[in-house]
């Protein structure tokens, strides 16, 4: 294989593996804030127990997220040096801002979140939990700013020619609020909330099935389902808004998502099917006019098809189509699960619905898969561009790196990541089997003051 293919596989594989974890950190971060907040507000120690247990799970996901995240920062330089020179002026700032505003906040207060239970008072601990959660969200903000700029570049001009050409910032706020940034950020964050919520739901459902830790499981499920439902509903709004943005800013990408070859008004939306690339048509079930309506909110708007895009500028159609539709399908399934779960919880009969609990046990795979497919759709759909209409993917490669060297690192990363994943699953399973500690129902150290806190009295 050539160095381009190997570098693309390596970047794709390392970022896909990395992206298993940040959504868990962001989503669990929200769950921890809600649980600890409820504990401080109500003084109900079940919420103290849930906070403690989910913090231990959070620590596990966070550790692998950090360890695999450094790889990403290095890979821009190691494998994509020409790209780094081209975008450094714009892209580098977002990355540096992520370090200063997000990573320090996250890792600093993580110390208090994990190790400070007996060292600081309840309010300081809650503050730290909020800061870790905020840091995780800031991190999403800056990395999505950087990635969105590659999708819809703005606020820059090109200086120099040929090998020396590069993008320079003309307006920082236009770079930050580039046309797709707000849509993509909100969509990504909702996806992360769903991931965290469904991890909590999956593990809690397992306890209900095994009839263990039922009070703990019910408390966790309540918070989990509320977040899951809210995020799933918001996801429809952000998803719709994102797709309309794609239609406007990256028509070739939308055509790839929908496998639409002929430019047309009254374009149909494919509900289920696949792309027959040879005959340039869709095989499957289509909803007439719906795509046009979704883009323009009226049926007569014209949606650009792939045939009006130069062949050299078209994304891989089948892959874009598959990832995009996979993501959308899972999204609606998650909405249904969250809605039904809330209903059963409200009726108080969730523990009796064993078939549903079994679905819930595996439900965390839903948002994880949807996150992966969504990002694959976004990045595959951007091809053949690395920076939209400015830099093609092969042009961004490092000039001095040989294929055998990339193959070496690819094999190394593959082995290590398989090992890491195995250890992660092993330890996660171990934590699940151990379950929440009973002594966490009695807060200790400086936290052992729920009554005083409840009545706002100083001890």
């Amino acid at each position: 294989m050539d160095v381009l293919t190997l570098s693309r596989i390596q970047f794709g594989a390392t970022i896909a593996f990395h992206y298993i974890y940040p959504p868990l950190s962001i989503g669990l971060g929200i769950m921890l804030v809600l649980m600890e907040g409820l504990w401080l507000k109500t003084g109900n120690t079940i919420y103290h127990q849930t906070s403690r247990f989910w913090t231990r799970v959070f620590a596990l996901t966070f550790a692998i997220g950090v360890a695999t995240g450094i790889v990403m920062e290095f890979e821009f330089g190691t494998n994509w040096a020409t790209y780094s020179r081209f975008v450094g002026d714009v892209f580098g700032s977002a990355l540096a801002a992520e370090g200063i505003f997000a990573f320090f906040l996250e890792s600093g207060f993580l110390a208090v979140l994990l190790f400070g239970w007996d060292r600081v008072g309840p309010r300081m601990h809650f503050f730290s939990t909020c800061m870790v959660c905020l840091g995780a969200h800031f991190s999403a903000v800056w990395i999505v700013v950087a990635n969105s700029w590659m999708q819809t570049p703005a606020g820059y001009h090109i200086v120099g020619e040929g090998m020396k050409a590069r993008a320079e910032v003309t307006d920082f706020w236009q770079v930050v609020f580039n046309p797709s940034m707000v849509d993509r950020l909100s969509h990504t964050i909702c996806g992360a909330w769903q991931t965290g919520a469904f991890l909590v739901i999956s593990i809690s459902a397992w306890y209900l099935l095994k009839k263990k830790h039922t009070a703990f499981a019910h408390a966790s499920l309540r918070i989990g389902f509320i977040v899951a439902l809210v995020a799933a509903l918001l996801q429809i709004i952000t998803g719709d808004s994102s797709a309309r943005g794609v239609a406007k800013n990256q028509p070739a990408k939308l055509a790839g998502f929908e496998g639409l070859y002929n430019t047309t008004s009254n374009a149909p939306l494919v509900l289920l099917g696949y792309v027959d690339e040879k005959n340039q048509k869709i095989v499957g079930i289509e909803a007439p006019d719906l795509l046009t309506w979704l883009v323009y909110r009226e049926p007569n708007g014209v949606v650009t098809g792939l045939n009006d895009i130069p062949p050299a500028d078209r994304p891989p159609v089948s892959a874009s189509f598959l990832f995009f539709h996979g993501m959308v399908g899972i999204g609606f399934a998650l909405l249904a699960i969250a809605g039904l779960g809330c209903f059963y919880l409200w009726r108080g009969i969730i523990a009796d619905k064993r078939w549903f609990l079994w679905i819930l046990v595996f439900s965390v795979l839903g948002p994880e898969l949807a996150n992966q497919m969504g990002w694959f759709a976004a990045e595959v759909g951007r091809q053949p561009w690395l920076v939209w209409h400015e830099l093609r993917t092969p042009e961004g490669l490092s000039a001095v790196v040989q294929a055998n060297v990339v193959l070496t690192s690819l094999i190394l990363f593959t082995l290590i990541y398989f090992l890491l994943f195995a250890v992660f699953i092993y330890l996660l399973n171990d934590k699940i089997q151990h379950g929440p500690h009973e002594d966490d129902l009695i807060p200790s150290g400086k936290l052992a003051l729920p009554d005083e806190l409840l009545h706002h009295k100083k001890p």
Partner: protein
Amino acid sequence: MNLDLNTIWFVLVGVLFTGYAMLDGFDLGIGALHLFTNKDEERRLMLNSIGPVWDGNEVWLVTGGGALFAAFPNVYATAFSGFYLALILLLVALIFRAVAIEFRSKQPMRWWRQTWDIGFSVGSILSALLIGVALGNIAWGVPVDANGEFAGTFLGLLAPYPLLVGVTTVALFMMHGAIYGVMKTEGELHDKLRVWAMRCIIFFVICAVTLTMATLLYVPHMAARVRENPWLFSVALANMLAIANIPREFHHGNDGKAFLSSCATIATLMALFALNIFPNMIYSRPDPEHSLTIYNAASSPKTLGIMLVIACIGVPVVIAYTVCIYWIFRGKVKIDRVSY
């Protein structure tokens, strides 16, 4: 030398990497010393002495890398693609180290803990060595072609001088870590660490003297600025005094001051390094005219200005809460149920 944005960013990137060396330096040093004891209790104590802070310390490297990317993209691109295999090894070392800290005490089996202990220790030593070798290569000079691309090989990076810098870095971090360990522990482990710290100090002094001689003899350009501006010799003098003060304070039992002296040693070493490479960021050997400097490798003045605003907002806040967190976790380390 006038104070323009490029110079300010040269200094700021230097400050971030110096912060990294001072903070993660003791983490890596503790890691390097980890296998010196085979008692599980003592290994846990050492691990937990850095437990709450190692992750934040590593962020200095990530942010330093980000700042280098943003302020000097050509340097970032040339160095990272040129040092490809070395950086992949560094990543592997850092990954193993990070997850070993998190995983080791999660299971009681002896083979489990022994495996992660080795991962933690080897990862720490290898990280320190590779960081040192990278600095050594920047000091020695690396082949760069007319397009600003690295023109050497991986094995070419392992020349004697860079390796000497690498070993010196390991010695420096081991000394730094041992002194930190002395501050954070008590009882039997404290006494052991005190003995190790004295040995590490001797090891470091031998390395430092050898490195200084080697630099003066074989890498004369790394002393050129100080030679031309004799008043800068004060930095070298400060470095020497800082090193000499470490065993002195240590002997008197002022462990905290010994640690500060060790920090000062790192800071003055980095200052000497920066003063002598300035304004180059990658010195090209054998064609010095291909060197990447803070001017031909920098981002636009507009970006450097924006980044300066970001740094002015972010850095003081970061320093403020970093100090708070070190304050919260002050005192001797104890094992409790949230420990690693």
